[in-house]
């Protein structure tokens, strides 16, 4: 039974991108409005994905032959892991478009085309159930982001964009090799078929290395993280939001979706290494964030730390932890997305991102202050907001089998408070530093509207995460079946 909803959600933005690209008479502002409408419509269309539940199985599947000679199929579908990520993507896109009113004034149409193409690619990554199709979407989402950073970015944008692409492509090259080998060895690229295939332990080890390398670069897991701060600092606000909100999740998603179920023995074998890297990432990223003076770099390194939690939760191989990790992917998208939006807003006014240039904004920009404090609290995992649920589930689940790792990771919670409150204090409190502070107006209605959906979700997920958790858990459980058998077999 084929369901066209997912295909529509992917092809809709793609069609709109083509339309805007090929309609020469279209003026910039109508193009932007059209983009906004398309992204909102895509969001609305994607909501049913979240509501259908088949006990953790794939829903909304579309399965048609694509390159029949090689057995490659156009196979889409979502489960409890991917559906929330798809909706996160479709939710963030309209906000990115809304935010672009503040900072993208040249080449607006091209920007819209890139955003829409990127959206299609990102949704495709989460929805693809065929490895080759996954790879195609994986690369398809990369190039528009490269262009967004390279064209609309800051002073060192070329360096940053190139670095971003080289890192990612180096990783995905290994992924491609891995996919080709899998197809050669099993004769199929379909996810469902591959889960039934058995690869020898030796094969698994190599394939796991190839896949994990690609995904760890994307996450980014220490030590592959150095592209991230550069990319974030140079990217325009929208680029940063997408990068942090969605792109990084492709890495953790890939680890959970492909590495664990397809190469269970190797995953179990290498789990200690990844757990170690995750813990190192949590602490190291937090320390680095503390030492930064550039607002965006602080958030960039905090992402390294937060994504460390997600990897920790995935490789703890425990369902509560992995469910928390999946939720934390969403949480990080919300809170870091909001933080990048806020930093973008203040940058549009001040044209500086140095922490030392700010001070006393609580008095002059109260609405901004409230929003920043709110996003910060979500980011540092204050109970009652979304971030806490994710971190808590990850840590409590990890503790069961890896008490030391969980304890060390808990210190990340403390370090998180240190650097984030440093950021808040530097921006909002104390005496006014920048001479022009008084001329910066407070957030306007558009900016509040951009942030409002994120804040609403932070509260909702903090107090009532259960509907989402209920959707995530069975799907995560399925991903953990194979590694669990591998552990028992050991």
């Amino acid at each position, binding site marked *: 039974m084929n369901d066209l909803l997912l295909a529509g959600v992917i092809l809709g933005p793609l069609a709109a991108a083509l339309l805007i690209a090929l309609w020469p008479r279209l003026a910039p502002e109508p193009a932007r409005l059209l983009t906004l409408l398309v992204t909102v419509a895509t969001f609305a269309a994607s909501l049913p994905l979240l509501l259908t539940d088949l006990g953790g199985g794939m829903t909304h599947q579309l399965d048609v032959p694509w390159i029949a000679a090689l057995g490659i199929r156009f196979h889409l579908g979502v489960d409890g892991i991917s559906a929330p990520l798809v909706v996160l993507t479709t939710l963030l896109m309209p906000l990115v478009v809304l935010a672009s009113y503040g900072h993208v004034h040249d080449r607006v149409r091209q920007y819209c085309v890139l955003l829409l193409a990127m959206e299609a690619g990102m949704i495709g990554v989460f929805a693809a159930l065929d490895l080759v199709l996954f790879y195609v979407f994986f690369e398809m989402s990369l190039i528009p982001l490269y262009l967004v950073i390279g064209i609309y970015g800051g002073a060192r944008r070329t360096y940053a964009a190139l670095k971003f692409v080289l890192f990612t492509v180096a990783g995905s090259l290994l992924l491609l090799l891995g996919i080709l080998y899998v197809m050669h060895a099993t004769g199929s690229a379909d996810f469902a078929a591959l889960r039934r295939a058995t690869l020898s332990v030796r094969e698994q080890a190599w394939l796991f290395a190839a896949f994990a390398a690609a995904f760890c670069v994307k996450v980014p897991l220490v030590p592959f993280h150095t592209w991230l701060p550069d990319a974030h600092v140079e990217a325009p606000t929208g680029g940063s939001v997408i990068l942090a909100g969605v792109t990084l999740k492709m890495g953790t998603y890939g680890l959970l979706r492909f590495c664990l179920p397809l190469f269970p023995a190797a995953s179990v074998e290498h789990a200690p290494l990844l757990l170690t890297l995750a813990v190192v990432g949590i602490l190291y990223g937090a*320390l*680095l964030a*503390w*030492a930064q003076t550039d607002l965006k770099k602080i958030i960039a390194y905090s992402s390294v730390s937060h994504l460390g939690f997600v990897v920790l939760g995935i490789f703890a191989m425990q*369902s509560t932890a992995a469910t928390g990790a999946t939720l934390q992917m969403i949480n990080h998208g919300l809170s870091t997305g909001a933080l990048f939006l806020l930093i973008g807003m203040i940058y549009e006014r001040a044209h500086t991102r140095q922490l030392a240039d700010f001070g006393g904004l609580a008095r002059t920009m109260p609405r901004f202050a409230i929003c920043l404090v709110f996003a910060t609290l979500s980011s540092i995992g204050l*109970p009652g907001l979304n971030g806490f649920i994710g971190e808590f589930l990850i840590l409590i689940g990890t503790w069961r089998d890896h008490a030391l790792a969980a304890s060390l990771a808990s*210190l990340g*919670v403390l370090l998180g408070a240190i650097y984030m409150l440093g950021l808040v204090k530097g921006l*909002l409190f104390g005496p006014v530093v920048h001479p022009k502070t008084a001329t910066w107006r407070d957030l306007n209605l558009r900016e509040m509207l951009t942030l409002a959906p994120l804040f609403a979700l932070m509260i909702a997920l903090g107090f009532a*995460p259960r509907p989402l958790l209920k959707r995530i858990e069975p799907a995560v459980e399925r991903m953990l079946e194979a590694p669990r058998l591998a552990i028992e077999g050991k």
Partner: protein
Amino acid sequence: MNLVAALLLALPLAMAAVLGLFGRRLHGKLPGVLAFGMAASCFGLAVAAFLHLRGLPEHARFVEASFWRWMDLGVGDSRLALDVGVYLDPLSVTWTLFITGVGSLIFLYSIAYMEHEEGAWRYFSYLCLFLFSMLILVLGENLVLTFLGWEGVGLCSYLLIGFDYGKEIAARAGRKAFIVNRIGDVGFLIGMFWTWKLFGTLGHGEMKPLMAAAATVPPLLALGYFVGACGKSAQLPLFVWLPDAMAGPTPVSALIHAATMVTAGIYLVLRLSPLFVAADWALDVVAWVGAATALFAGLIALRQRDIKRVLAYSTVSQLGYMFLACGLGAFGAAAFHVITHAFFKALLFLGSGAVIHALHGEQDLWKMGGLKHHLPKTARAMTVGAFALAGIFPFAGFFSKDEILGVAFAQGYAGHTSRYVLWGMGVLTAALTAFYTARMMTLCFGGTSRVDPHLHPHEAPAPMAIALQVLMVLSIVGGVGLGFEALHWMPLHRWIDPVLAAAPHPAHLPAALNWGLMALAMMIAVLAWRIGAKWYGGDFAPARQAELTAPRLAKVLLGRFYVDEIYAALIVRPLRFLAELCLEFDRRVVDGLFRGAGQLSALLATGVRLAQNGVVHVYAFWMLVGAVILLTLALK
């Protein structure tokens, strides 16, 4: 009861939201009056809950009300099911009663205190949020909800300390409070993780039989929670945030940093008392930390000049007494001291607020003096509070403090010799307490006036005065009304002890010895008070001279044992250095490796590039060579 419980949480939260969203448009006293009305209603609800529980038979005195399922994950022994709900039992209701009761009075007081402040609506919104967090802390159905409230009160404390955001000091103090508390939170979190692994649940109601049945639990598990309690209740070594927190408005100091929030640590230990009892030597750690903190903070308080700092250190010291009681297994006595302390410390803080208010923000004791003539009502109220703090019969503090010291002595008497040391530390602290309290009162109200002559101190307006009067009455009757151990009149214990763990080393003193000890404590307190009052009474000059030309110990006291400096040198700066080191490492080594890889390929390219010399004939030559090779291969 479900409705009462729901309203207890919903009212403050709703009020916080209303004031936060629309408070800007409310003028004058309206935000304060609304908030006070809400707090008073909460007190009414708490009384209703209390009466309901009292009507139940002793073994069934609890109500579990669940509002909705928070999360429900996993199966079997790894199931994690948590509700958003309320657990009412004598312990939580007792806390609710004094939180809302003392809270209402402080809300009332704040109406007048904050009248002329800019952004009073914001202040009251935070205060309501605080009340909500505090109530969810004590009423929460499971440990995670308790943790939610725990962090929530920390947040409100952070926001309220930094309320005056133009002040750099206030912002710094707020951040310090939050971060030091977070250190404790890590302990709390780890305690929860471990508890879940051990018991498979985090619900208070479900844990109760499991904890009681557990023969032994790892001491480190209990200590995890104790680290959390140390953070929130400002015990050694995490007490450093509390004195700095006095940068916030004075009613906040009274509510959060004296009466309610800082007792959350005690609440946690009481709530998990069976766990602590089963955790082998964990209780001893609690007792020693408590006694040491009491003495340590008492010493520092001797030489503080800021009136609020004196009170802050005395709070730390009194909290030490409470932990000492917990450590001795006298959990009921700890709860007793929490309550009396809430009365008299709130009174003292509010009184000091009235003084500061009258002096337009002056907090330096050296610039006060002779105020009893200008502020007679405040002076009277504060004197009652001071007597209660000093442990003078028949004021509230005497009874609770004496009970704790009595337990310590009794355990020593029963053969645990080391408990005599604890008792000695307690008695010494009591003497110090009476001394510094007398010093503070004398410097503030007695002697000749050193007040700036341009100021004309006047009594506080009505709402502040009413709050002071009520608390004054409570500080007098609050002790004897709740329990007098020597006379076996112990209504509080009868109410609360059934839900607490029994003491691991129960001990009783012969009645005569008990009375004798009581008289001794009383004599020590009175004597210390007299000395303090004498030294600082009369002419101020010699006293000041004595404090200025301080010998080494006194200088260390004035420097507060340099704890902040030591932490800065041993922890903060090395950590910061590590962060900077990581940054350099990241930039040079990690990123350097990748950039090096890039440069290496560029270097390789330079070698290959030599072939591209731009001379067409050379290219042609190589092409020819290639063609010949290919031909040879093809023809072979």
